[in-house]
């Protein structure tokens, strides 16, 4: 569906995307996970043919964005990071205006708009001005709008950033339904739980490069131990604890507010910490996650 080789985006002398390779298959949910400034949006804009690549080759639906932008976009749905809804128009009118850009007949746009409002659970708000909607409703409207052309590929740039947990789950559920209908989804996020929930495969981006790729399970298996023990000490001493356990667990990382110990058995690691005479303020044993993958691959945590 999409393939990139050596894809690069430069703004002046700075490289936002530094020569990345990836390929996205039909029907999958493909994620770009990375912190602020990783180059996710720059990559999405290139895939959406809204911004020309500085270097490298890119194919979207078999076509070349530099030549066939309009044709590619005709079969593409885009949910930009920042909403671009028309605040003065009603919810329904936003869909109607947008559908006309794709040259759908008024009748078809109207039919699809009603169906999509239902899909986005906005039917009761069809006549409201966008200005009056909550953040979650606006995001759902933006998603509905991106679907007006019945695209086979939808690009979603941080679809749930800024939404409360309930609103996020609703969005996830709708995206899951789209996937079941066979729509290919590209999702960027800096939430590891979102990537884990939604993505069949993903790449981890950092500073314009791809530092890891695979399914969420593969990435965790490859880069992280089975279990993780998080320890918070009351009064510093994190470095000393790390020094004491190093060599006796698989790996240890010191973060701003906690120490993470990696190993096959969290409870055994906890017993070790207690055995060394530490009285942690709190501790948590959990399974390895994409958060740990990111930490492992970049040396930094995903959400500061």
């Amino acid at each position, binding site marked *: 569906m999409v393939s990139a080789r050596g894809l690069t985006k430069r*703004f002046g002398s700075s490289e936002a995307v530094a020569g990345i390779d990836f390929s996205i298959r039909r029907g999958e949910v493909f994620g770009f996970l990375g912190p602020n400034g990783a180059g996710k949006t720059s990559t999405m804009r290139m895939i*959406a043919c*809204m*911004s*020309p690549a500085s270097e490298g080759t890119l194919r979207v639906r078999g076509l070349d964005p530099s030549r066939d*932008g*309009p*044709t590619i*976009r*005709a079969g*593409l749905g*885009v949910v*930009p990071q*920042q*909403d*671009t*809804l*028309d*605040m*003065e*128009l009603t919810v329904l*009118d936003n869909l*109607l*205006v*947008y559908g*006309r*850009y*794709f*040259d759908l007949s008024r009748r078809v746009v109207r039919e699809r708009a009603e169906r999509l409002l239902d899909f986005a659970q906005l039917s009761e708000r069809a006549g409201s001005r966008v200005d009056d909607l909550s953040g979650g409703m606006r995001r759902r409207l933006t998603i509905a709008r*991106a679907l007006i*052309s019945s695209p086979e590929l939808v690009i979603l740039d941080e679809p749930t950033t800024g939404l409360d947990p309930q609103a996020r789950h609703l969005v996830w559920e709708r995206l899951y339904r789209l996937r079941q209908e066979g729509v290919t989804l590209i999702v960027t996020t800096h939430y590891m739980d979102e990537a884990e929930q939604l993505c069949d495969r993903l790449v981890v981006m950092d500073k314009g490069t791809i530092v890891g790729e695979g399914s969420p399970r593969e990435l965790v298996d490859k880069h992280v131990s089975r279990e993780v023990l998080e320890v918070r000490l009351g009064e510093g001493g994190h470095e000393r604890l790390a020094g004491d356990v190093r060599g006796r667990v698989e790996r240890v990382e010191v973060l701003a507010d906690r120490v993470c110990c990696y190993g096959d058995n969290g409870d055994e690691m906890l017993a070790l910490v207690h055995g060394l005479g530490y009285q942690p303020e709190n501790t948590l044993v959990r399974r390895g996650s994409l958060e740990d993958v990111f930490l492992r691959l970049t040396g930094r945590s995903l959400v500061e």
Partner: protein
Amino acid sequence: MMGRPLWVRALGSWGFRYRRTWRGSVATSFAFPVLYLAALGVGLGGLVNRHLASQPGRPGLTALGGVTYLVFVAPGVLVGSAMQIATSESTFPVMGAIKWQRLYEAMLATPLRTGDVLAGHLCYIASRLALASGAFLAVAAAFGAVHSPEAVVALPVGILTGMAFSTPMVAYAATQETIVGFSVVERLVIVPLFLFSGSFFPIAQLPGALQLVAELTPLYHGVALARACMLGHLVTLSSLGHAGYLLALVAVGAWAASRTYRARLAS
């Protein structure tokens, strides 16, 4: 791509939004010329006509081209207001479409390209100018300021003059981060032009050097052309010169805008 041309789809979306405000806009388009022609053409014009008629040798007939002040001033205000409408439609709405509402970005995520987005917006502005100029002509006719069938050509002249301001302004607006520059342009360019380009008095009244400056401004050429239409001596070589000047400005502005739009929107 099959189907409607892409720029027509962009124009259509402006039309769709206009449906929400068309009543107020149409009312203003008619109210504006009524106010101006009543105050200047009839009110002030009454004094001017009487003064000129009382001069020995009756120079008024030649000073105003042999017509009453109402007939003289009507084409001037027509193109002057076209300039003002074009300028305001080409500044804040452009900034809004780029930064505030991000309408352009929404369009660019669909088959539309930057050139289509630009062309659609310019055509919308031209339509607004057509409405304003048409309304102005109708009101002017009702005031008895139309003396020739050639006056209908003043409608395209209003559009042309407006677009000679619109395309460069749109090009400029697309480079701006704030609206500060817009009021500077309004105060330092638009208002002086409105007052001194021959709309309200013949530029022969200006000191020699300023006359030359006035003749270089686009509004002067628009006023001269519209006046030629309204008075029925359109078919002259100088009309061709005026139209050529304005067309060249439209073209240069459109070329510049296509560059600034691409730089701003497709980076």
